[in-house]
């Protein structure tokens, strides 16, 4: 579904990604783990078109997407829940979700998807008219996830959905990820919570200072002594 071939990305003179390659197949949950500053967010932004690679190829469903603007890639079927959630603080929960469906015109379908999102996170339903900026961190994360789903993406990209959340909320979020995948959506999950991410994914990539240093089956990686030491704190 998605492939990155030798992708390098620079911020000015700073090299953030140094020739990374990865692939995601239809229906998979793939996780990308790595320390702070490894380049995880940069990878997601490159995939979603917010950043343009210096070299290499990004292909989505066989189509080369390098240089296509982010707002056009949404129409092709990918959506992102950005790092730090990026909810529209002065808009209500409902309005945020409507923005998620910005490119859609099917009122009925939008309403159905919104109800589906509310069913996934009933707390959002209770806060439908509340301004997103007044939600708790966990609720904002739920909102960001449902908002991304509102464009009916085939590929969902999540940037650290569990960041700064209490264990119980983290659990809720990962349950939702399972639910989303069972509905047939392919997911690329960026996480620092390597434990949970490896537990809830099929395959994983380990990113270190702009390079992919390990990849493989999530269960196998979770058992790998190097991963255990560096990312699972064991």
């Amino acid at each position, binding site marked *: 579904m998605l492939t990155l071939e030798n992708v390098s990305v620079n911020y000015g003179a700073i090299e953030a990604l140094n020739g990374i390659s990865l692939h995601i197949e239809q229906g998979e949950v793939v996780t990308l783990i790595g320390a702070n500053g490894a380049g995880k967010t940069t990878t997601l932004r490159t995939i979603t078109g917010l950043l343009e690679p210096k070299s290499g190829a990004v292909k989505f469903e066989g189509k080369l997407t390098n240089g296509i603007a982010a707002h056009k890639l949404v*129409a092709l079927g990918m959506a992102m829940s950005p790092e730090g959630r990026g909810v529209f603080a*002065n808009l209500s929960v409902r309005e945020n979700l409507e*923005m998620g469906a910005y*490119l859609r015109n099917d009122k009925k379908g939008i309403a159905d998807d919104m109800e589906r999102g509310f069913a996934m996170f009933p707390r959002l339903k209770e806060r439908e008219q509340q301004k997103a900026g007044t939600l708790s961190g966990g609720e904002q994360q739920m909102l960001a996830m449902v908002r991304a789903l509102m464009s009916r993406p085939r590929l969902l990209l999540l940037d650290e959905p569990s960041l700064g959340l209490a264990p119980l909320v983290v659990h809720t979020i990962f349950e939702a990820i399972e639910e989303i995948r069972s509905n047939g959506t392919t997911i690329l999950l960026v996480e620092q919570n390597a434990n949970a991410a490896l537990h809830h994914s099929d395959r994983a990539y380990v990113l270190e200072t702009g390079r992919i240093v390990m990849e493989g089956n999530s269960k196998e990686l979770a058992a790998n002594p190097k991963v255990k030491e560096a990312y699972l704190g064991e």
Partner: protein
Amino acid sequence: MNWVKSIGISIILIALIYVINSAMSSAGFFGFGIDDYYSRLLVFIAINIILATSLNLINGFTGQFSIGHAGFMAVGAYSSAYFTVNYGKAIESSLAFGGETIASGIVLLIAILIGLIFSAIAGLLVGIPSLRLKGDYLAIVTLGFAEIIRIVILNIDSVGGATGYQVGGYANFFWVGILAVITIVIIHNIVKSDAGRALVSIREDELAAEAMGVNTTRYKVISFVIGSGFAGVAGVLFAHYNRFLSTNDFQFIKSFEIIIMIVIGGMGSMTGAILGAIIVTLLPEMLRYLPDIQIGATTFKFADLRLVIFALILILTMILRPQGILGTKEITDFFKRKGGLR
């Protein structure tokens, strides 16, 4: 509020403006007259409402930071004035069959169109390069543009250069008032439309807006061009009401005054911008009537200190309400019953 409703309200407002305008004539209206001083204040309130609501579209709703609104006002003022000074009389006489009022009205409408187009084009030229980039380039570029345009005009002798430019008095309160209403209606409906929601999402989080499928560059440019175009309209009205243009009217201080209006009223609030325009126009005038106070042998002439007091009031407002008087709320929100959990 949809177009039908806003047009209904506009018709009522325009009728009101007509009545007030009639009262401004020397004969007055049913014996009541509004003297020149108050007429002038009303006209400037209306012009400032156009300036504030249009800047609010850019700065308040879209979250960009233009600090050169007076520059676009100048483009509208001078381009339209050049037209009326050189061609106004000829057009009027060729339209004489329709009566004097209609002929001069048509000249003004053409002038408004010219001012609108020229300032919108200026907005496009300034906006495209500076809004493609993320960050505060717009502030720097608009500041520079406003100064450059002023100095360019200062050096064009055919529009008066440094001596100023005599312009025909085609505009009165009726016209200025109608255009203020039209501006409010158009900008209000933009803000309430899907496009308006896209603009607000850019203000809230540009990256996220882009990730939702909003063509952020395009919307930022559209918002900026519309805002600048209306600044031009305000310029046209100012030129043809004031009957005299000087580049001093469009200095940085004027841009700043417009920013103060929206900051005081509440950035991102339609009624806030209107309120801000009224306050910033009226307050310095009202302070003229401050009484002298005699303490011992010294008399304090507070009226002489009116600009200092005005500044102090503004500072105090910002300390007490940093989000502006209305914040992002509308006056009407305060009359609505709050629904849901708060």
